């Protein structure tokens, strides 16, 4: 038993190695969220551009919209950002940002620097709304329909492929119904 603790570093390393091995070969894939098909959790949050005003989920009823969880400290957000900026230029579907656990000043700078694809961004400084939505990490994107039901969840960056194969067809269907 006593010599077990000397093997411990080796065992920890082997586990780490397995993760690294899998990390080399696996690709990120979408995970079904328990919230898909359920009503989007309610929120009422201050707006990033004007903290005096708030935005609630009810204000967005009657339209199909995307909720994109982002933060200025998030490296993967940089990756998806051009895709969102391009999407916002097309004006197909409004994208609302949930600025997650961030400093408002840093967030505004980030948007000024990289372009602002959001119709509006809301501020979730301590991540409370993020918990309601079951945010694993940043970035995440939700498709929410006219009745306020979550129809799709993308964990990780929105790639052009995800956008054209999953999100946009879904948005078109939902908008038509």
């Amino acid at each position: 038993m006593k010599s077990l603790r000397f093997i411990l570093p080796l065992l920890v390393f082997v586990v780490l190695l397995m993760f690294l091995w899998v990390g080399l070969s696996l690709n990120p894939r979408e995970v079904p969220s328990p919230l898909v098909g359920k009503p989007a959790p309610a929120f009422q949050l201050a707006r990033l551009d004007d903290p005096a005003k708030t935005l609630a989920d009810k204000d967005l009823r009657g339209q199909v919209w995307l909720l994109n969880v982002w933060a200025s400290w998030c490296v993967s957000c940089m990756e998806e950002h051009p895709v969102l900026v391009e999407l916002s230029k097309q004006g197909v579907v409004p994208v609302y940002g949930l600025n997650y656990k961030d400093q408002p000043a840093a967030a505004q700078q980030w948007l000024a620097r990289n372009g602002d694809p959001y119709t509006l961004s809301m501020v979730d400084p301590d991540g409370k709304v993020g918990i309601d939505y079951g945010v694993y990490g940043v970035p995440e994107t939700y498709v929410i329909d006219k009745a306020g039901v979550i129809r799709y969840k993308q964990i990780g960056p929105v790639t052009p492929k995800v956008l054209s194969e999953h999100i946009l067809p879904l948005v078109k269907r939902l908008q038509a119904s």
Partner: protein
Amino acid sequence: MIPELGHFALIVALCIAGVQAVLPLIGAQRGDATWMALARPAAQGQLVFVVIAFACLAWSFVANDFSVLNVASNSNSLLPLRYRFAATWGSHEGSLLLWVLMLNLWMTAVSVFSRRLPSEMVARILSVMAMISIGFLLFLLFTSNPFERLLPAAADGRDLNPLLQDPGMVIHPPMLYMGYVGFSVAFAFAIAALIGGQLDATWARWSRPWTTMAWAFLTVGIAMGSGWAYYVLGWGGWWFWDPVENASFMPWLVGTALVHSLAVSEKRGGFKIWTVLLAIIAFSLSLLGTFLVRSGVLTSVHAFATDPKRGIFILAFLALVIGAALALFAWRAPKVGLGGAFALISRESALLVNNVLLFVAAAAVLLGTLYPLFLDALGLGKISVGPPYFESVFVPLMAPAVFLMGIAPFARWKQDQPLDLARRLKWALAVAIASALLLPFTLGLWTPLLALGILLAVWVAVAGVVNVRERVLQLRASTSVPVSTALRRLPRGYWGMLVAHFGVAVFIVGVTLVRGYEVEKDVRMGPGDTVAVGGYQFRLDGLKRIQGPNYDATRGVISVTRDERPVATLHPEKRFFTVQQMPMTEAAIDTGLTRDLYVSLGEPLQDGAWVVRVYYKPFVTWIWGGAFLMALGGIIAVTDRRYRLARRDAIAPTTNAPTAVAQVA
């Protein structure tokens, strides 16, 4: 011809490394002096060929040989000479060659400065280092040949990544790699000691200066990288908790723990198993860092070319080196005896807690860095762990460690009286608390974090001064020499420790004050507009187009005044690199001891106006000043008399030893 020569030199180096890895090790097991004696000339010969290879690659870059793929991809005929030279290590292949060059420099240094070591030890150390060298040489030759030809040759190169076209980039990677790779010496010492079963205070004394030296290089390397990010990325940030930064920071944290744990091993014969494990882990993290950076398993702002085949190679190498080292550890460590016992209140305890805190901090950084990878591997998606996580775990871990830094130099080995310690330190604590309560008010804002930072910084600095006073008084009580003589009699190792700890205090001041009092403004400015930041007036006098060697730029002229008096004229630039089609922000900074004025150009707006970022950064240079002091402390400690004395003493016994051949060779 020259590139082929370099390629051939690498193959020769690989062959020499093969000999150096096998024969001396067998010689050490069999007690064969001739085979052991091969280690030193082999190490030096290997260096010669690696230097030739490196020089060939550098020549190809300097001479614009665009028939070499690496040169064509990473250089351009318009690139200034110094960057063409630095481009030698600007690519993946070149940086690996730099890695091997550094490893060989350390190896040769060990072969030269090891006259006092038993030849078995030297043979084993150089053999272990040669094994690492083999791994990297194979990696270079099979997956990342820097000399690969491009036929037909390109007319011109694709240019060096503009981010790397900076004086800091010329020095930062060599420094960082010196540190990274330097831990291979401590690693090889540990492995050699495990093989030979000779884990004692002498072993700790031998490996200590090497470890401290590597640690000092790493400290400078990280500080320079941080300084580079500060003025090149144009955001005014100095640390981003980016995976590549973390890759260098983890070995630093463990290396810091190792430097302290070696002190206990040397002075008290304790913590031996722990020290060996730390030596293995420090270098393992250097290798892991290489893997993370080179394999592309993590997203990072450092956009290096990545290739899964290379990832698999490094992973296999990682598994082999670290796996074998940890297996050896599991096998041999249980036989190592325990060191001297110590009480709860003693210097050993303080250093043990410091070690645990540093180690946990490194583990927390590792977890945060790899967490996205873990989730990804478990199929839970790609995410990013950011500064909120790192800062919330890091500060609570480091605060008690820094607090202990003030106490540990006072505590006696083995056992001390808590009341006595409290009595000796009460003034230092009083000054620290008073500063923490009052100083932020005089600066205009009091927050708990500001107070904590100032408390810790003042505490460490004042405790250091009190400690010197105590040591001088002790010396004078026994010898009654004048103060200046007493100061000179304090050993260099002690001064090194003080300077390094003082560096930590300076660093904390920088971090705390810049966090608490910085002013950042992103404003729209047209020619003639003025903005006030931090008591300074910034006036945009005008903008002009200028032509660089390989870029076009818009240069702003901003005059800074304070109370109508001119302070500085700043020239921030927005450069557009024509070959790479990439814009770059060149911030203009007026540096001062107590503040930086930082101006960078954002995006152009209508009517010739620009978004201009104007930052006032109080005490930001103290961050790097502190880091340089830490490194300086390390260098001072390495020059301690006892390491030189030990060398001189060792001459007599070793010349009589049966293995004298190895010493001569």
